[in-house]
């Protein structure tokens, strides 16, 4: 009984997160300035993380958590390096 409710809640949440990812991609495409687009790209990474976690919860497998870990670490470094590149106009 409760499993059905949890499953429908997870599927509803997955749909909402996919729509939010689409909105953020549109915002990256039509941003006002470069920092706005960088924030949008960061947010797309975070929402993709949420989608992966929800798929892991729906399928009840832990392999998606590995993908989410890699995505979190790489997305963090990408945001830091892109922000530094925009501020200083060089990477190192």
């Amino acid at each position: 009984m409760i499993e059905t409710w949890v499953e429908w809640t997870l599927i509803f949440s997955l749909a909402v997160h996919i729509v939010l990812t689409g909105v953020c991609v549109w915002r990256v495409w039509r941003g006002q300035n470069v920092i706005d687009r960088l924030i949008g790209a960061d947010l797309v990474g975070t929402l993709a993380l949420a989608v992966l976690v929800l798929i892991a919860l729906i399928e009840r497998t832990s392999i998606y958590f590995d993908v989410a870990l890699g995505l979190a670490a790489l997305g963090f470094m990408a945001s830091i390096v892109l922000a530094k590149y925009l501020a200083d106009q060089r990477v190192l």
Partner: protein
Amino acid sequence: METFFGLIVILAVLIGTAFSVIGVIGFIRLPDVYTRLHATGKVSVFGVVLLLLAGLFWTPVSPGKDIVLIGLLLLAAPVASHAIASAAYRLGIPPQQLMRNDLAEVVEKENDPTPQG
């Protein structure tokens, strides 16, 4: 017990989804870069972390990965937000309705070519 955990999962997933929706609405609607950054911080710190807490109750296969991911997100997301805000200030994007600016003299001192002391 299964019913109790299921209710916790439903509550956490709904609150996390609400935080994600509020964060993206703030990202679209707020007036300048810094307030938008403030809104998007909520998506990772509250939205995804609440989903991961739900995962801690719902899939008992890998609680270790789950806890590591929560710690990584709680450490990494504010650092990335600070880096982006700092880059925005150094690019010269003006904050709106500024009351007080402590960062101005720091950046001025950084850009000063004469050696200090």
